[in-house]
Structures are given as C-alpha cells and as structure tokens.
C-alpha cells in the first residue's frame, strides 16, 4: 500500500463496463429465447454474440481491477470488500445448487415413493399408475423416453473423482508454495491443476456422449435424467469457469503478480476450486453412488 492511498478508500469515478455487461446479458438471453422459441432448430448466433460481449466485459472489468490492484490503489479495506463480495457470491452459488439438490432429495424421498403408492399416494398409484413401483432410478410412471441404463459409478465417475481430488491437492500445494514464495513451484502445480481440470471436463463430456448414445440416458429420461444432467451439467459449467480462472491466475503468477502475504485473487480462485470439488463429492455420493 503506497502512502497516497493508505487512508483513502478507493472509489472508482466512472464505470463503463457494467452497462456493457447489461447489454451482453440481454443479448445473450434474447438469443437463447429466440433459439428456444424457434420452430426449427437454429444456431443461436445472437446468444454467442451476447456471450462474446459478456466475455469482453469480464476481461475489461477484471483487467481494470487487476491494473488498479497492481498500481497499489487498494488498501486493506478495499481488499476486505472484495473478499466479502466473493464469499457471499459463492454462498449464493451454494444456494443455487441447493435448489437442485433439494429437487433430487424431494424426488427420491417423496414424489417417487408417493407415485409408487406409499403413504397418501395409494389412490394415485392405484387409479393413475397401477403397477408402478417407485424404485430409484426411475423415469417415472410414464416411462418417459423408454428404457435406459445408468452410468456405473465405479468407472468414469470414479476416475473423475480421483482427477478432481488430485487437482485439489495440486492447487493446495501451489497455495503453500506461493506462501513460501517458491514461484516456479507455484506455476508448476497450477498448470497441473488446469490440466487435471481439463481432463475432468473431457471425461465428463465423454460420459455424456456415452449416456446419450449407449445408455439412452437423456435429459428427458424422467426425473432421473433431469436431476442427473442438471446437477452434473451445472457442476461441469462451474468446473469450466474455475479452470479458466485458474489459467488466468497462472498467467498472472508468471507475470509476477501476487505476494506471499497478499494474494487475494489467488486465494479466491483456489477457494472456488475447492468449492467446486466439494460439490462434486456431493454429486458423486448422492447422484452416482447412494
């Protein structure tokens, strides 16, 4: 912290990126709606344009912040604001995942057994869906999309769990290395983390191909397919984001950013990666195994 900014809370005076972000968000969503509502399947060019605008905004916005940070415009109090912003953002992510986990638990403990005639569902079962047993996994009494098989948890998912766990170990090693100011070590382990994350995403894509082509397990395979793909899909999306962020952090470390005693950007991304890994453990346990 330089002398000039020590007691001054840095307040930027103009922000040109938010309005770009709003336009990007709107174009993205309108493009998505256009594609969704179209009678024939079309390439959602408009959505891609919107995502492009959003990416432009993110690079510009974060670029400004990184520049200001390296110019020592931020004092510890600004730093704390960023930390708080980050943790409460992640808390909101937790709640977003909670909604989908909630749907999974509700389906497994309530709606599927009820449809199978348990509790007050007896009449429903006998009148509407006679013969439906309500065993998980299920595509419901309507047997939507026909017979399907599920992914064996002890093949690809097991490998994926190992990959992601290993990536958490590597990023922790990188974290320790950064604190000890061993920069080449840090860079090495960060690159290892990105590679492991990328392989995870690749295998996850492989698993989806397998599910669709071999097992006939699709998004429309009843409640099992719905919860399976939405949970793993949103998780995969977050892994992708996390891997991109770690890649950016790696570049920053190579450029000489961050100090052993002040490296909030690093810690935030590392924490995000840990969060994504823990969500995966939850998925592995509740979606694949139990």
């Amino acid at each position, binding site marked *: 912290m330089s002398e000039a900014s020590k007691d001054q809370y840095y307040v930027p005076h103009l922000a040109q990126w938010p309005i770009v972000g709003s336009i990007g968000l709107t174009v993205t969503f309108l493009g998505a709606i256009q594609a969704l509502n179209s009678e024939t399947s079309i390439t959602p060019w408009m959505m891609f344009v919107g995502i492009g605008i959003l990416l432009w905004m993110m690079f510009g916005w974060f670029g400004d912040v990184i520049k200001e940070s390296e110019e020592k415009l931020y004092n510890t109090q600004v730093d704390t604001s960023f930390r708080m912003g980050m943790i409460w953002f992640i808390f909101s992510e937790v709640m977003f995942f909670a909604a989908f986990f909630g749907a999974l638990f509700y389906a497994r403990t309530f709606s599927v057994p009820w449809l199978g005639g348990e509790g007050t569902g007896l009449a429903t079962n006998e009148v509407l869906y006679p013969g439906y047993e309500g065993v998980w996994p299920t595509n419901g009494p309507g047997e939507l999309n026909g017979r399907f*098989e599920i992914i064996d948890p002890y093949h690809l998912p097991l490998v994926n769990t190992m990959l992601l766990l290993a990536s958490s170990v590597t990023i922790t090693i990188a974290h320790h290395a950064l604190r000890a100011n061993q920069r080449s070590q840090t860079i090495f382990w960060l690159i290892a983390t990105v590679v492991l994350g990328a392989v995870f995403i690749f295998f996850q894509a492989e698993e989806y191909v397998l599910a669709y082509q071999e097992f006939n397990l699709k998004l429309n395979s009843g409640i099992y397919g719905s919860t399976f793909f939405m949970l793993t899909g949103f998780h995969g999306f977050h892994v992708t984001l996390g891997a991109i962020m770690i890649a950016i952090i790696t570049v920053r470390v190579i450029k000489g950013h961050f100090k052993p005693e002040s490296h909030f950007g690093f810690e935030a991304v590392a924490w995000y990666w840990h969060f994504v890994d823990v969500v995966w453990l939850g998925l592995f346990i509740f979606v694949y195994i139990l």
Partner: protein
Amino acid sequence: MKYLIVIILLFIIFSLGSAMFYLVKGQGKSQNTVRFLTVRVALSVVLFLFIILAAKMGWIEPNQPVFMKP
C-alpha cells in the same frame, strides 16, 4: 455406512466454510485459510478411499447399475 459418509461430507463442508471465514477474517496473512483448505482436501481423500473400501466390502449398495423396465 451411508450416514458415516454423509457425516464426513458435513465435516468437509465445515472445513471449507471455515477456510472461507478466515479468507475474510485473516486478510491473507494468517495461516488459517490454507490450513483449513488442506484439512478439507485430506478429509476428501479419506472419504474417497473409504467409499472405495465400502463398495469393495459391500457395505454400501450402488444404485441398480442397469435399470430394467418392469
């Protein structure tokens, strides 16, 4: 066995949360964030090994690997 897995998972989430707490509190100077993150990674590895062991020993039954139409 199922419950043991869930309990370990809760411990993992707790240490992750503690790391988050110290991320704000510690201002990047204290050791606590990285320490709790290390704990959480270690716990996760333990849990993972335990799941493999439990599956091998037949303590937990996986979901029906192949779903048959009734």
